[in-house]
């Protein structure tokens, strides 16, 4: 058993570190500027450190599949707080385009997406179609001259639509076709009169998701990805990505570190809260789950690296992390006591986390949908005769 990457990777790590040190932070010190970020991403792609699974022809760095290298690069980028090259939305659309896009679509969209010049949001959910995504109603019809799609309807909960240039959407193009058969996957430029974006305020007071209305919005006929009426399959494409889940552990680990720090700072009955027996014990119990998460992820990653079957944990990871985040947020609540009622106070971050931990239980497939998927795919349980298959819902598509 070996939890490290092995000495053969030490030289590679040193190279990556040296590269980052000579490119980040930028000379003018502006960590937020898009131009600086873009320059870094371009250089990192050039070097073979970013977008490794994407062909050079489309702006990637086309490196051999090597999860250990990918992981080392991510670790070093995180350590240096350098741009990761990942923009939410973009990571979803690029694999789809690679698998299903026409040559023209790939040429046109992938490279600017990698550099952040095009920013995508995901237009799947609708007011009437959440978990049961295939019941969506937004429709697109061909214009009479057959050159454009005319789109009418609305999307909801669209994260970052207000900061995006484009949206990838599921729309109904085949009226009268059965539920799953009438859906197509369309690329739409948001910057046009037929599109209205209305921000929705989250329970945290932030404006991160939106409603997107299409009122005779247009997109050229060749902006349909995959076949007409086969959009459902398109959403289910999964590229063999160098995505191990190890990077997904970054936030639970840092949330835990923050929690320990909080429990040391906050006083309870004249001593640090962390000295309180009940709090201490709950913290240790949480750490037991966190360790389970971490080492199961190492095991899943190892199975992937060594091409072995048997990884059931990856299917459970989202639900496990969701539950863990909630448990951490509740222990923080117990420690901050009276401050928990004060949205203007010093503990706002924890009040926000208490709420944000819930978004995980909804976005990208609700916890119940995760349970349905685990029941079917991991435990192999038969379906109830009246209910629909878990595989046909949002969690599987997103």
């Amino acid at each position, binding site marked *: *058993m*070996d*939890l*490290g*990457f*092995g000495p053969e990777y030490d030289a590679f790590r040193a190279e990556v570190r040296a590269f980052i040190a000579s490119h980040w932070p930028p000379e003018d010190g502006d960590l937020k500027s898009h131009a600086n970020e873009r320059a870094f991403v371009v250089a990192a792609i050039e070097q073979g450190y970013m977008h490794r699974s994407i062909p050079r022809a489309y702006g990637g760095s086309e490196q051999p599949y090597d999860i*250990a290298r990918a992981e080392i690069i991510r670790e070093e980028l995180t350590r240096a707080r350098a741009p990761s090259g990942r923009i939410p939305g973009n990571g979803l659309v690029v694999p789809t385009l690679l698998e299903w896009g026409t040559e023209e679509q790939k040429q046109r969209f992938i490279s600017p997406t990698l550099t952040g010049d095009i920013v995508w949001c995901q237009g799947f959910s609708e007011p009437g179609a959440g978990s049961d995504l295939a019941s969506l109603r937004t429709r697109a019809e061909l214009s009479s001259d057959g050159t454009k799609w005319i789109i009418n309807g609305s999307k909801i909960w669209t994260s970052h639509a207000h900061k995006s240039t484009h949206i990838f959407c599921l729309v109904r193009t085949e009226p009268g076709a059965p539920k799953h058969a009438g859906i197509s996957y369309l690329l739409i430029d948001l910057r046009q009169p037929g599109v209205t974006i209305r921000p929705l305020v989250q329970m945290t007071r932030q404006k991160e998701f939106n409603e997107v209305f299409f009122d005779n919005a247009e997109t050229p006929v060749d902006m349909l990805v995959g076949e007409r009426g086969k959009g459902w399959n398109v959403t289910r494409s999964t590229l063999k990505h160098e995505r191990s889940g190890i990077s997904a552990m970054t936030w639970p680990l840092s949330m835990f570190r923050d929690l*320990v720090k909080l*429990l*040391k700072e906050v006083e309870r009955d004249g001593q640090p809260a*962390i*000295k309180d*027996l009940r709090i*201490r*014990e709950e*913290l*240790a*119990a949480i*750490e*037991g*789950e966190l*360790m*389970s*998460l*971490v*080492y*199961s*992820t*190492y*095991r899943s*990653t*190892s*199975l992937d*690296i*060594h091409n*072995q079957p048997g990884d*059931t*944990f990856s299917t*459970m990871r989202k*639900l*496990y992390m969701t*539950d863990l985040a909630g448990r951490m947020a509740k222990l923080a609540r117990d420690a901050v006591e009276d401050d928990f009622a004060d949205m203007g106070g010093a503990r706002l971050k924890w009040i926000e986390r208490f709420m944000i931990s819930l978004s995980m239980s909804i976005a990208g497939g609700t916890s*119940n949908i995760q*349970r*349905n998927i*685990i*029941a079917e795919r*991991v*435990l*192999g*349980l*038969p*379906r*109830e*005769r009246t*209910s629909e298959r878990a595989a046909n819902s949002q969690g599987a598509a997103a």
Partner: protein
Amino acid sequence: MNFLLSPEQHALVDSVSGLLRDRCDALHVHQVFDTPGEAAFDAALWSALSELGVPAIMVPEAHGGLGLELIDLAIVSEALGRAAAPVPFLGHALAALAISLGGSEEQKERWLPALASGEKIATVAFGESPGRWAPDEWTLLGETLTGTKTMVPNAKEADLIVVGLGTGALAVVEKDASFTVARLDVADRTRPLDTVTFTDASAELLANGTVAAPRVFDAAAVLLAADAFGGADHCVNMSVEYAKIREQYGQPIAAFQGLRYQLVAMALATEPARGLYWFAAHAWDALPEKARHAAGQAKAHLAETYLQVTRDTVEAHGGIGFTWEHDTHIYMKRAMLDWAWLGTPSRHRQRAADLAGW
């Protein structure tokens, strides 16, 4: 990175599991469990396991052992837990480890070969109720021992007992020394426990016992965690398979979402814990600065999970799950022992918190 078992480790588990499939199916465990009188272990099964090398796993090669690591012992413990095997593995493996780690060359040569072959049986006497299990909590003192140790596995059958002393040292007491043994009316009749009362019992100190003691304590935590994982995973599988065949309302109960979610919760608690006990074993073998903490965390988390999963298993089976004939109660009782022996999850968490510097 290769956080996986090696082909040799898979082969070891396969050989043990294969034997258990042939010689220790559920019916057999029930027979042992239901044998009237004091709980007893299955001598024929233990000798078959000894032939496979189970008691030799961590004994150094120089003394007739296989010279393997704790991870190897732990994956065997998982297999034994899965089968609820009625064998004196726990005490024996820990006693052999104590002598391997703490004995002088002469002591090792004297005792280990017969333990590695399974010719003799050994056990450890750590507990001093209530809840005192760790080397820094032991109290027995003296050249000859006087006092009581509780929850000693298979003391009655043991040829030698490794006893934890108040100095944090370890001493070996042989069968003919002056002590009495009273078998508990144990819940887990697959792993009998005794109360041992020493009266001026002659004892021989292990040369490096104070160094070995905390390592053996941590190894014990890992072996219990592994046993708990095997048992819990078996209970999940058993519940899932039952749900697929039991029909109510004209369909398999596995189709009902309420029950499905209960089964998912059981799997979600159990599957990720495999990585935790593997890590604890690996840390014991290779990452000394993380070993103590990881061992305590693994024992706490797995013992708690196992006990809860056995409760869920009863629920998932309905009326049949509440019976003596069904397997579940045997697993629940194994879970009770894994929970209580060596200290409760709560005590291990408090200890882990101390070790984390909180």
